[in-house]
């Protein structure tokens, strides 16, 4: 990545003038000078325009999950979306993937509205979603097979992408024989093998232990740098978002709105342990704390089994 970004402040609030943040939070001036040339030149890849989603709950009420979300992601950009559990960030990824349609608004890819699922946008799930009845190699091959890519080319690409995630030796293994980290690497290889323009990652590393997660952060950053894919990465961990993203988007809790956005102009490769990463995360976390508390309150009040433990703040700060 560009080494010119070395001396810029760790955290520089940026907001798109066309799409003010929904939460009415104080946002700093637009810092155009801090946007690199690469980003400026790049075209809009993904555009969320006035996205709202509501659905009927079991009691018959309508619940507004996403409220008027506007977001633009440039080609090759790594955007991290952060919010408490239940803010609808996973749902947003499903909308971009075309697995659901929004109640109002549009998802645009290269200016074209999304009509349904497409292999130009591949979603990586937290529970990896690999097929247990197929071998590792067959899993990676699956998307290409659906696209009717010839067998010889598929075999070659399977090996290429398995080498990329350091799993070439496990081509013939079944999923249950792999560790959690290895499974997530297979999921990444399977997603990359269809050669999507956009990778959608839904808390992919949330269930992994810290060491494995660090390792996968490094691998993901390397793959992203090498291949220049657009990545939209959803997490509830602010520090993870700052460590990985070019830009961090904070979402509010129910209904999900864009609260604020920050560009992260730290040099790459980064590490979760970098003091700059911790510092930038600190600031974002303060903004997010209010939302986390609201989500906790709602969960206790509604008697829903809380998915976040009371000491959640620690988890978010990690």
């Amino acid at each position, binding site marked *: 990545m560009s080494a010119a970004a070395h001396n810029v402040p760790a955290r520089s609030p940026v907001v798109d003038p066309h799409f003010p943040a929904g939460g009415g939070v104080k946002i700093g001036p637009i810092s155009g000078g801090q946007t690199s040339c690469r980003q400026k030149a790049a075209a809009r890849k993904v555009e969320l325009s006035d996205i709202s989603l509501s659905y009927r709950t079991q009691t018959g009420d309508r619940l507004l999950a996403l409220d008027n979300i506007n977001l633009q992601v440039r080609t090759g950009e790594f955007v991290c979306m952060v919010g408490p559990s239940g803010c609808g960030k996973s749902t947003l990824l*499903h909308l971009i*993937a075309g*697995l659901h349609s929004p109640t109002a608004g549009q998802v645009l890819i290269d200016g074209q509205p999304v009509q349904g*699922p*497409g*292999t130009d946008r*591949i*979603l990586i*799930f937290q*529970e990896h*979603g*690999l*097929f*247990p*009845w*197929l071998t590792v190699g067959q899993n990676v091959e*699956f*998307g290409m*097979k*659906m*696209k009717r890519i010839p067998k010889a080319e598929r075999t070659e690409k399977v090996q290429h992408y398995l080498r990329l995630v350091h799993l070439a030796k496990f081509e013939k293994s*079944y*999923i*249950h*024989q792999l560790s959690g980290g290895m499974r997530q690497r297979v999921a990444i290889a*399977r997603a990359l093998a*269809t050669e999507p323009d956009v990778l959608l990652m839904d808390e992919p590393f949330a269930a992994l232990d810290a060491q494995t997660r660090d390792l996968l952060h490094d691998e993901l950053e390397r793959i992203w740098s090498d291949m220049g894919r657009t990545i939209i990465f959803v997490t509830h961990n602010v520090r993870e978002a700052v460590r990985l993203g070019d830009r961090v988007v904070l979402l509010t809790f129910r209904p999900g709105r864009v609260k604020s956005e920050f560009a992260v102009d730290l040099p790459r490769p980064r590490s979760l342990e970098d003091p700059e990463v911790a510092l930038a995360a600190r600031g974002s976390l303060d903004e997010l704390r209010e939302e986390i508390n609201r989500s906790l309150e709602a969960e206790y009040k509604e008697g829903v089994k809380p998915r976040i433990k009371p000491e959640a703040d620690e988890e978010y700060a990690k």
Partner: protein
Amino acid sequence: MKRAARYVIFYAGLFGLWTLLAELKLWPPYLFPTPWGVAQSVYGGFADHSYWIAIRVSMERVLLGYGISVVLGMILGLGVASNKFLEETMGGLLVSLQSLPSICWWPLALLWFGLNQNAILFVVIMGSLLSVTLAMEDGRKQMPKIFSQAGRNLGAKGFKLFWYVLLPASLPFIVSGLKQGWAFAWRSLITAEMLYLSLGLGQILMMGRDLNDMSAVLAVMFLIVAIGYLVDGIAFKSIERHLQNKWGLTAAT
């Protein structure tokens, strides 16, 4: 070893009791034959090829009928599971129809198809179709949502989604239903064959009765049990073991 020993003791005891009762001649031999007499009947049946023919005819019928049931049942089950209207209406009907013994379809089959193979086939299909349908419906519901999402996300839709994702993903959940469907198909076949004399194992069973030959009757009953056990113990066991190896399941589903 211990398990084998238990088997040997149990079956030796059963065999001994049978021999004892037969040798005591409490009942005439044509009503209560010795194990030796039954064994001779089995040997005779295979030697004059009548058993081979009967087994072949019966297996052909049951495989055809069961095969049709599996294909139809999967389509039906998937339809019921994925359509709310069908689920609410047909779902209940299917469950209540399952309480109907398959042989109740026999009179209807006779009037529709006449006294022939097709009537037997119809009874076999009706016997196993509901089990397969209900199993598929249940399997589709139990199957984690993430598989169909991942499949659609990777570009599978329509028939491809069914064939490459939904079917293999639901297999561990439907294999016991498929097994039950097989058992029902097999029973329906034998019953139908007993009512309509057209080769097959059911017919030679009834022939034993007509000839007042209890050894032959017991021999065919033994044969029917043995075939049922072989299919269950070999075909379905190996499918289950195969699934367990792939999915990493520890217990049979």
